[in-house]
């Protein structure tokens, strides 16, 4: 079945550590790619998106993600995390052939220790 996979469900890091969250998808056609973040008690917010062009996209709060088409991957990175990055992170794919819909990964809960 076509899906979106996030490799780790829980990640614990110390402040200033580097972060990389994996995301792979199984749709073969053209896709739009997203990372959403959900801070404790808040709603889902868009962190960054990729539609086309430069495969390295930069988002808010120092996050970036790299689209590697050959690997069907869209990994999220941040060089130095802060305690305030504690949140749940969702990768999402818009498989454009199905219209303006999002298919989400199961999420990764990041806890940053101060």
């Amino acid at each position, binding site marked *: 079945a076509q899906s*979106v996979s996030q490799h780790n*469900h829980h990640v614990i890091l110390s402040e200033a550590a580097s972060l990389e969250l994996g995301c792979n998808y199984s749709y073969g056609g053209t896709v*739009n790619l997203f990372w*959403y973040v959900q801070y404790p008690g*808040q*709603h*889902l*917010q*868009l962190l960054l*998106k990729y*539609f086309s062009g430069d495969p390295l996209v930069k988002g808010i709060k120092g996050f970036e993600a790299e689209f590697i088409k050959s690997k069907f991957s869209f990994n999220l990175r941040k060089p130095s995390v802060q305690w305030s990055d504690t949140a749940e992170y*969702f990768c999402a794919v*818009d498989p454009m052939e199905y219209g*303006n*819909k*999002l*298919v*989400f*990964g*199961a*999420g990764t809960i990041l806890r940053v220790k101060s």
Partner: protein
Amino acid sequence: DAMVIQNPRYQVTQFGKPVTLSCSQTLNHNVMYWYQQKSSQAPKLLFHYYDKDFNNEADTPDNFQSRRPNTSFCFLDIRSPGLGDAAMYLCATSAGREGFYNEQFFGPGTRLTVL
């Protein structure tokens, strides 16, 4: 601020007792979505409205219905909630412009408990 509002934030219902969840938006978006998110799982699209056109996902149970009386409001009706329907229900909206990707904006969700 323009936003997506969901009421209530927490809803408790009894097994088999109909329940309605509410979503409203001040963004004037013409597309509204309902997602179901169970614990430790991905949000799963149940259905969406493009203006007044209802689009059901193939695997959404018949127990779930939706109404959109106007642009601003959309309701999720669960006719006979089962224990397996306990979840967070997320409403989202997008502008729905033809030929463009339209970002989805999410509400805070309603957490449904079924006793």
